[in-house]
């Protein structure tokens, strides 16, 4: 019995929703970042499933690009978090209202 691609897309939807919930619920910016990774990963899974359905390698090429962007994003984001921590010695997103008017 083969697995229909829609099951993979459904799993990806569930993982994405869990990632969204994680970003909203948690106060630790590192965990929020990991939840964002979770969402990117869910999108990748959907890409691979769609590519499998269509039957060419374009979906996998897109996943490759998403991985590169995720790596760059994580490096920059973690550097920003470390810099903020150096400035304030605390790490709660509720304190970070610097750019809000």
């Amino acid at each position, binding site marked *: 019995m083969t697995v229909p691609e829609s099951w993979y897309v459904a799993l990806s939807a569930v993982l*994405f929703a869990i990632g969204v919930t994680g970003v909203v619920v948690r106060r630790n910016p590192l*965990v929020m970042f990991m939840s964002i990774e979770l969402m990117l990963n869910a999108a990748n899974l959907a890409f691979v499933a769609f590519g499998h359905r269509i039957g060419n390698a374009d979906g*996998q090429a897109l996943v490759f690009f998403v991985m590169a962007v995720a790596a760059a994003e994580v490096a920059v984001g973690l550097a920003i978090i470390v810099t903020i921590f150096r400035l304030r010695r605390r790490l709660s997103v509720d304190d970070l209202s610097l750019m809000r008017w």
Partner: protein
Amino acid sequence: MARLAFFVIATLAVGSALGLVLKRNAIHGALFLVVNLGAVAALYLTLGAEFLAAAQVIVYAGAIMVLFVFAIMVLIPGKEETGPDPRRGWRLLALPAGALLAFQLLLVVRGLAAPAGPGVPAVPGGVEAIARVLFTRYLFPFELTSVLLLAAMVGVLLLARRRA
């Protein structure tokens, strides 16, 4: 058999994702995320994307998660989510909102659902097929990726520099 494998891996993925969101300790969350990434890599294998499964393990579980664990250890884990939550009610509201989002997405997927076509050709998941696409149709984005990574690297060095 394939469906059983899918269910086992999917349960693992969803369980570890929930662990990431619900566990208080950030290090535990990072380890749960590693499990989740490994499970998704296994799903890539079942979809015939061997290169992506390897890249997932190397890039995500290897490089990115090591960076996360480093950051968590530098930033003193467990110190940031202590004390009462000033906005507890709003945060708890996020749980039904997330469940609603999942429900809606699943409705969309269900609307799109079609039985797996019998004649769907298997994707050539090896390096060869991806390389052919990457270096012909997506050559320009591929080169741009290197610029992006370079820019990210320079930016990180600038941000992490210790100011005198």
